[in-house]
């Protein structure tokens, strides 16, 4: 047979492709078949490396206990190991289909309204009505889990506040007392300059400025933290208009310019732009007297607790957590942005009932307390906030005080896109590739492109 090879190849190809395709398809069907009546609830969150707090919280023992109490439900942890950006992309793709979606997802409160608008998330209101513990959650913080339609899509897991981390040895050497507390932005700049003069090898002031590696932290921990201290905001929830081309935006950028370029009291660009900026500053430099001030969240205590990434004895003797002052000290004198992560149920999950049972077990008083202790985040439950062990946490008093003048990010599904524009604006100023004026002008056109010119305004 001279034509043997042609036919044989065709036959082999078609058979192997067909069988492989069948195999590929079948493999999945049998997995989701409910032959044995147990429902598997898959939990997805972003894995943050060794000492990941979720892994420490939801241990094999915790899962076994839950499964014993709830026969018919199995819990499976599906951590996603990737950068934050890739985490959201992956989650969004997965939630599109009932075949791939996890049953419980960890959503940052800034992207939740956007994912809710995309139709990925199940409203939880009817489930929460039947949960007696829901009333123990702090009322003001519930909005972190709400969509732009006002429905509750997420159960708050943590919240946070931001301030100025201060190394006591460094600030003392610069000629201040240990209870130094900045009253306005100028105080911060003055202290940074003095630190630079007295200790040239120390990083005087650190804030997240790299759009590529800092991501949302640049928008929230750095820019918004400044902007809301000028009395302005990013978005007017009443008029539904975005703030552009304003004095507050420019002076916030000027602060960054002063730190990074004019006075050169920021970290070197190779530190500031590094993918490991956060861990370099808060796990290495700051606790080791190699950095003076750092503008960041209270959750950094999670680094220094026992079992954390860089455990530190007597942390309150080494560091202090100062409130973030407003621009010129206007009352109440301090300000903070507040956010946090929430637990949500994807709409396409087929196991809502079982998943909600797991959610309840994940957010009991005991688990919330443990989480706050492990992570250094603030609790979202009133009963935990009164717990003596919680109150013993280092810096808890300041962090909680800050919450009294806390602002939340805009509840708009467009925020994630605006956030990107903010990050680019901040990086451009920090690297001196644009002046504050130029960067603010670019931000105006960017935002107008995202939300439409008619939805912008200039505050004050």
């Amino acid at each position, binding site marked *: 047979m001279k034509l043997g090879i042609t036919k044989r190849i*065709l036959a082999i*190809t078609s058979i192997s492709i067909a069988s492989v395709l069948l195999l590929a398809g079948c493999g999945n069907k049998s997995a989701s078949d409910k032959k044995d009546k147990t429902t598997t609830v898959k939990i997805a969150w972003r894995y943050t490396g060794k000492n990941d707090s979720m892994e420490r919280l939801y241990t094999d023992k915790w899962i076994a206990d839950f499964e014993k109490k709830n026969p018919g439900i199995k819990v499976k942890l599906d951590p996603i190991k990737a950068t934050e950006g890739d985490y959201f992309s992956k989650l969004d793709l997965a939630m599109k289909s009932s075949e791939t979606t996890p049953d419980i997802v960890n959503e940052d409160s800034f992207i939740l309204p956007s994912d809710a608008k995309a139709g990925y998330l199940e409203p939880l209101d009817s489930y929460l009505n039947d949960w007696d513990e829901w009333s123990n959650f702090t009322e003001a913080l519930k909005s972190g889990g709400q969509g732009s339609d006002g429905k509750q899509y997420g159960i708050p897991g943590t919240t946070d506040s931001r301030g100025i981390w201060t190394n006591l040895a460094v600030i003392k050497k610069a000629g201040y007392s240990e209870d130094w507390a900045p009253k306005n932005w100028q105080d911060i700049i003055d202290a940074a300059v003095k630190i630079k003069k007295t200790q040239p090898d120390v990083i005087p002031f650190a804030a997240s400025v790299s759009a590529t590696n800092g991501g949302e932290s640049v928008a929230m921990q750095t820019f918004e933290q400044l902007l809301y201290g000028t009395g302005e905001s990013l978005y007017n929830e009443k008029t539904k208009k975005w703030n552009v081309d304003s004095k507050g935006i420019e002076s916030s950028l000027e602060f960054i310019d002063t730190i990074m370029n004019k006075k050169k009291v920021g970290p070197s660009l190779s530190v500031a732009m590094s993918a490991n900026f956060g861990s370099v500053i808060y796990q290495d430099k700051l606790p080791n007297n190699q950095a003076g001030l750092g503008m960041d969240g209270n959750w950094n205590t999670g680094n220094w607790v026992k079992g954390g990434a860089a455990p530190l004895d007597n942390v309150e003797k080494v560091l202090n957590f100062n409130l973030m002052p407003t621009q010129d000290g206007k009352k109440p004198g301090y300000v903070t942005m507040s956010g946090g992560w929430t637990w949500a149920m994807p709409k396409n999950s087929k196991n809502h009932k079982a998943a909600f049972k797991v959610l309840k077990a994940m957010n009991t008083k005991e688990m919330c307390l443990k989480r706050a202790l492990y992570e250094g985040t603030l609790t979202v439950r009133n009963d935990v906030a009164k717990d003596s062990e919680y109150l013993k946490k280092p810096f808890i008093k300041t962090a909680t005080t800050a919450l009294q003048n806390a602002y939340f990010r805009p509840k708009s599904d*467009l925020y994630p896109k605006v956030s990107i524009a903010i990050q680019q604006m901040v990086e451009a100023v920090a690297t001196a590739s644009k002046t504050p004026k130029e960067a603010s002008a670019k931000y105006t056109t960017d935002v107008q492109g995202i939300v439409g010119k008619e939805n912008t305004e200039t505050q004050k």
Partner: protein
Amino acid sequence: MNSSETIGRIPNRSKKRNQIKRTFGLLAPGVLLLLVFFITPMVLTVIFSFTNLSLTGDAAANLKFVGFQNFVTMFKDPELANSIWKTIIFVVFSAVIGQCFFGFLIALLMRGKNKTFRRVVGLIIIAAWVTPEVVVSFCWVAFLSDGGTLNKILVSLLNIKPIAWLYSFPMISVVIANIWRGTAFSMMVFQTALDDIPAEIEEAAVIDGASRWQITTRITIPMVRGTIATNIMLVTLQTLGVFTLIYTMTGGGPGNATSTLPVFMYKQAFVSYQLGYGTAISLVLLVIGAVASLLYMKVLKVKV
């Protein structure tokens, strides 16, 4: 050339029919897979570039055709011109000049050297090529960092302050890293070609009293001209799509200093969640690849 000879030797019609059948049979598995898993998604990509496709937000729930809007936005976006420019710089310096030049130089120098020596040098250079991209970029980030190998050497030799390479010279850094990574490919291509040059030709030139330089420029290089042209085209196409190396080293920054088209596309599609826009950008890359290849074929007479 070979193929045209072949046809002459297959005389009758039924043989020709068999040949056609055989062609289809042999090409079937490859073409089938390409159609299903490559052409189909590509057609979808083209379609998506006319939509507001997004991973999140309102657009994720309501997919709409937006006509040429993505393309209009793209051509108005100053970032596009920047990205095209950065892509060209990256490709020209790291691939066309860097990899080809060093690949050829090393291949040339390696001729007639001790076998073990060739092996060791070859293995070191190829180790750079086979090392996974993520590891390559991490090694380079460490190599260029403040306390990295390069700065340690420079500081001890020249007594200067460490240089923040990735932030002061970002494009040079990624270009050098890519030369380092890709030279092995060109080296192997040229080694094969140089090995094929009959020894007599160059020996004859030596007897005629030609200098080494003359032999290289007048005999050796013209003889491998075809390989050089093909290699330039191949490394160009390989380098156009380089993403992981740049993104993990600099993230396209600082600012947009190293934002080549694949990085720009990724940022729009996955960081700003504008997938429709991102796919429109990726089509520009495809066009550049096609234009470059056609240009090479015309100017350098690359045979396909």
